[in-house]
């Protein structure tokens, strides 16, 4: 009997014991994962007859590796990026396993929210740390969170809260919501509805739109009908594809601004952002990648900078010590957005200002003045500790 109890205790202890910490070498390889057929980077229609092929954020990670190596020269650390591509979700897990087998502990992952959640769940017990650089899904910071997943890119909740704060500050309380047919559009709308409720805005009407000329669908494809017969101060449009929303401003029945997917857009980064050393970061990126820096580029850049900072400042001799510093309260990261940045302990989301930008200017920076918080005003954006659905 006693033996059995002892055995049970031993097994419990084994299960609870953290993965053995790997010693930190001088040469640090960081895995970079992306999906070969990530639809977010497909060519899509642009303005007029142009097309847009969004750039991959790996350029941001590559830029940061050069930068942290400069800073790490004094301590003798040297970072390299091992870039791998997977064809599908199971492929992502295989790539992580293969690299982890070679001693890689840190991974930047560029994948949509669903794939990110699947991967993070699959490797939750492994001695790795994943940086989410492009997936905004709220569940990655909620029910699907993992203790070894660090979210650098803002969540949809943070983006929605940033917009809601601006509307409250401007006293634009009534909102008409237009929602597209994609899952992404629905997720964007849901996040905004949550933000609207949180900040006391009124959604006076919510309508589905379609990109079509079909007269039988006129309730959904005719902008005059979509924006008529309702009272609103502002139109929120959820349109991941961008083709419908591009020509929505100035076509609304009422003279009201458009926000969300076009007009005023909440984002982690804008090439027009000109404070706190941001132009230098943007210039370096443009020089290297020959295109303007966007949100995921910034997140990839910052993930590597965060890792470099944690390696240099933690003084840790193993990966667990670096992770503890990285995800702990001492991290004071320069993201060129003003305040020092760090990860929230309750869901491993990077707390950060959100930029509210038009095509050629940053109009405001959230948190907006006057939105206060008991410990850190940045935590007025996204799910705060008492509301979190994340339990590691």
């Amino acid at each position, binding site marked *: 009997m006693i033996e059995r109890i002892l055995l049970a205790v031993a097994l419990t202890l084994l299960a609870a014991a953290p993965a053995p910490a790997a010693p930190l070498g001088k040469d640090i390889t960081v895995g970079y994962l992306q999906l070969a057929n990530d639809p977010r980077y497909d060519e899509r229609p642009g303005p007029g007859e142009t097309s847009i092929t969004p750039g991959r954020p790996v350029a941001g990670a590559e830029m940061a590796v050069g*930068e942290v190596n*400069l*800073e790490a*020269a*004094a301590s003798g650390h040297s970072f390299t990026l091992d870039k791998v591509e997977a064809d599908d979700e199971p492929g992502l897990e295989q790539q992580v396993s293969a690299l982890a087998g070679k001693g890689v502990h840190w991974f930047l992952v560029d994948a949509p929210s669903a794939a990110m959640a699947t991967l993070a769940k699959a490797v939750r017990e492994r001695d790795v740390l994943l940086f989410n650089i492009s997936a905004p899904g709220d569940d990655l910071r909620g029910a699907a969170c993992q203790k070894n997943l660090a979210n650098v890119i803002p969540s949809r909740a943070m983006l929605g809260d940033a917009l809601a704060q601006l509307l409250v500050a401007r006293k634009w309380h009534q909102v008409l919501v237009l929602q597209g047919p994609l899952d992404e559009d629905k997720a964007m709308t849901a996040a905004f509805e949550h933000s609207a409720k949180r900040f006391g805005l009124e959604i006076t009407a919510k309508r589905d739109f379609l990109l079509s000329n079909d007269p039988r669908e006129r309730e959904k494809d005719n902008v005059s009908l979509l924006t008529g017969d309702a009272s609103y101060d502002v139109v929120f449009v959820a349109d991941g594809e961008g083709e419908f929303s591009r020509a929505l401003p100035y076509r609304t029945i009422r003279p009201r601004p458009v926000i969300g997917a076009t007009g005023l857009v909440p984002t982690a980064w804008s090439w027009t952002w000109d404070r706190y*050393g941001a132009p*230098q*970061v943007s*210039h*370096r990126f443009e020089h290297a990648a020959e295109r303007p820096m966007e949100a995921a580029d910034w997140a990839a850049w910052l993930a590597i900078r965060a890792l470099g*900072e944690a390696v*240099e400042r933690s003084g840790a001799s193993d990966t667990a010590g670096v992770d503890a510093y990285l995800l702990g309260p001492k991290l*004071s*990261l*320069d993201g060129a957005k*003003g*305040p*020092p940045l760090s990860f929230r302990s309750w869901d491993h989301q990077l707390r950060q200002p959100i930029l509210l930008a038009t095509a050629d200017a940053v109009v405001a920076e959230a948190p907006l003045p006057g939105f206060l918080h008991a410990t*850190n*005003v*940045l935590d007025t954006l996204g799910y705060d500790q008492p509301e979190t659905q994340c339990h590691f």
Partner: protein
Amino acid sequence: MMRRDIAALAFLALLALAGSARAEGTGRIFVSNEKGDALSVLSAKDYSPMADVKMPHRPRGMMFSPDHKRLYVACGGSNLIAVIDVASLKIIDRIPKIPDPETFDLDASGTHLYVSNEDDAELTVLDLATKQVVGRYKVGLEPEGVLLNHDGSVVYVASEGSNLVHAIALPSGKRTDIPTGTRPRRFALTPDGKQLWVSTELAAQVDVIDTATNRVTDKIDFLPPGMRKEDVSPVGLAMDRAGKTAYVTLGRADNVAVVDVASHKVETYLLVGRRPWGITFDRDQKRLFVANGGSDDISIIDVAERKVIKSVPVGHYPYGVAIDD
């Protein structure tokens, strides 16, 4: 009185003379307006506006030639340093092809200018007579503050994007990297040259570097009443000639910290305008002038009283102040 004391007094008197040996100036205060593309010129007597000097894009760092006849102004947006004739307020020369200059220092003779190129991760040395680049030193990302030590044997550069201060020996160029707090910005050197102070904007501190060992030996924290640490972003630094008191502008915290140099203790905070940045003494160090980038004005501090006595509107986004009094 002991003879030694008399000798000491005589030495002090000489020092005081040296400090004010320059002829009386034009009585003008120059404020560089980063986004106004102009210098605001005010009277040093009553702070009334005297002139606006239209400038190339983004004028920021300013320094006088040793004789105060010329004012050098780094114009980052136009990739040049403009030379202003202090008497006529005319731009009399432009030193072109300097990528994004922000702050710089002049050697004691006023013949060479050391400038950080924020976009190129480089410190450039210019011969002002020939306008030729005579030295280039690789530094970290986004180099900002530049300061020569008292005998010109070392130039210090703060690379805000790499969290490093570089001590570059001259003329050998041998570089020592000193890791600092997050986002190192500006410098002050104690009169004895033994301590280099550097503001670290995102760490909300000033790091004190021992110049003999090139190591950070202390960190000074700032927290004005009612503020949070993340609201505090120290940038501008001014230390008095006696090496007794230092003044630190705290950026987003809208305050200037008054620090005892010997003990590293913050003695008080002075509320100024929004986003205080550059900070400059007048000649006899009775007044301090603070450029408030966020409220388009300057605050004038009575040093003895430790009080803000006036705020004066200037151009758009004032960055720094230079005084020819």
